[in-house]
């Protein structure tokens, strides 16, 4: 991989410089478009902030926030969502790390096929998945079907398009074959190999997949609400029917909490993509 990747970076770099020459769009056009689009994204956030601090007669108040934090349900639903999220992340990693490594070592021919399989959840809308879960798992023991465990089990699948991709590209970026062969020739078994050689090398991908999966779980509404579990987003909708300013405050918190980690991984991954060839297994 390392030997082939170098072609990649210089070309993307020159592309980057070129496209500004190729397009030759006027400065006014650029600024007008980017400003208008930027406004569309910033105004709702600013308005939400303003709305959530709005008291009677346009006064400033933080009561929406203090009331929220004083609600027991706020903490219990948040805790439930975090539990489901952590469970999903562990299940995802336990299922995907061996699979992705296996596919790269033993079934490199089928790499594309597995990637396509990981995109299958996009074909079945989550509302439909929920209906299918109800019809096909009704008979299962209550400990699975009647508890949030079923949420974690399904979220692993629904978050697959993001989690698989993150792990797959990070395994792709290391010279897996050489690492495995070197480890084996030094007498390491698969477990040792995974623990001391592979995991440290794909740490970035593991963190990326975990953050994406966790963010998905914290925000997922359709499955949870239709299976009647009051997770954080379901609670948010309930609040919205009673107290608009609290719901807006809650939304703002939820958005900021998912945006910050997402921004970090987007930046890290785009930088990595650019420098993948120069520092291949340097992690």
């Amino acid at each position, binding site marked *: 991989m390392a030997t*082939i990747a170098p072609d990649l970076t210089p070309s993307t770099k020159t592309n980057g410089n*070129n496209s500004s020459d190729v397009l030759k769009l006027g400065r006014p056009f650029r600024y007008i478009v980017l400003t208008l689009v930027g406004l569309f994204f910033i105004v709702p956030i600013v308005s939400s902030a303003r709305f959530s601090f709005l008291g009677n007669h346009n006064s400033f108040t933080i009561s929406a926030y203090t009331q929220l934090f004083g609600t027991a349900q706020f903490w219990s639903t948040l805790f439930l969502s975090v539990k489901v999220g952590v469970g999903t992340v562990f299940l995802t990693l336990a299922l995907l790390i061996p699979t992705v490594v296996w596919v790269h070592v033993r079934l490199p021919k089928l790499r594309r096929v597995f990637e396509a399989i990981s995109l299958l959840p996009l074909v079945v809308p989550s509302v439909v998945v929920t209906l299918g879960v109800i019809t096909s798992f009704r008979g299962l023991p209550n400990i699975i079907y009647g508890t949030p465990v079923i949420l974690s089990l399904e979220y692993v699948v629904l978050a697959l398009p993001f989690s698989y991709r993150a792990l797959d590209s990070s395994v792709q970026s290391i010279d897996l074959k050489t690492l495995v062969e070197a480890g084996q020739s030094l007498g390491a078994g698969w477990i040792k190999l995974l623990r001391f050689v592979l995991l440290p090398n794909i740490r970035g991908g593991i963190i990326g997949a975990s953050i994406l999966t966790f963010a998905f779980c914290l925000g997922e509404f359709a499955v949870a609400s239709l299976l009647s579990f009051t997770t954080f987003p379901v609670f948010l909708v309930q609040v919205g029917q009673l107290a608009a300013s609290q719901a*807006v405050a809650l939304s703002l918190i939820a958005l900021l909490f998912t945006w910050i980690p997402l921004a970090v991984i987007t930046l890290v991954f785009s930088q990595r993509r650019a420098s993948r060839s120069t520092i291949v297994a340097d992690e």
Partner: protein
Amino acid sequence: MTKYNEELLDSNIRPVDNGEKTQVAAGRSSRGRRRGLGNALGAIPFIAYIGVFLALPAVSVIATAFQDGNGKFTLSNFNEAVHGVYLKSFVASIELSFVAALVAVVVGLLAALAVSSTSNSVVRSLVTAGSGVFANTGGVPLAFSFIATVGNFGIITKLLKSAGIDIYAHGFSLYSVTGLAIVYQYFLIPLMVLIMLPPIQAIRKEWVDASQSLGASRSQFWRWIGIPLLLPPIFAAFIVLFTDSFAAYATAQALTSGTIPLVPIQLGALISGNVLAGQTNLGDALGAGMILIVVLAGVIYATIQRRTSRWLR
């Protein structure tokens, strides 16, 4: 929320992988068939997991759609799904997704062009990071932040009212299909930007130079080379955005409390128990219909994508 973005972002890098893959594959295929079976073993847990938690539910929905309450074969569920309020909801869903995707394609393309034409690296990475973040935004919080902005008592609504413009008196409503189409732009436009940046940046300066040295003008370059190159990814992006808004449930449900006639909302209402007598498996027919539409879109997408990746090498 759909996150095709990662998938599409990387699509231009694939050819490099492909070349490498075939080398490895060639080395492998000579090693006999017995290893093939052993090789497949390690993939079984993953395949089995998807089989149980994705394929089984999906297949059971499709199978149940063809059964009546007693498990006998019938087409009456589908008959009902394409009449009356359910037909209307299919039409409304398709209309909404079509319009929302179309607007996002135009705006997102303009934004992607504007970003690509700037040499300012801060603006570039700001837009890339912003797109990555906003494309993954959606669901309930998004609905509430728009309620706070242009809802009945939203900040902008009140601001405009004090300026003498009452948007709700002029037929605008956030809690309608139009409103939803606007809210969906919040994740559709960034998705469009993410999808279009690689193909736009793949247009080489050398191609412009080559066309100029052959005597072509700038507009001729765009007419015969630039636009034909960008059309397939634009069309593919349109389909991604269409599917994304077609399957979206949370935002619509939170914004309209389930009063809007869209397929996911109707299906959700059927699941949560608002089932009339004789409609036992109607929901499954709606679900099968949704799968069918997404699969059709996916087939078109795959066809276009295959064509696009050829020149991106």
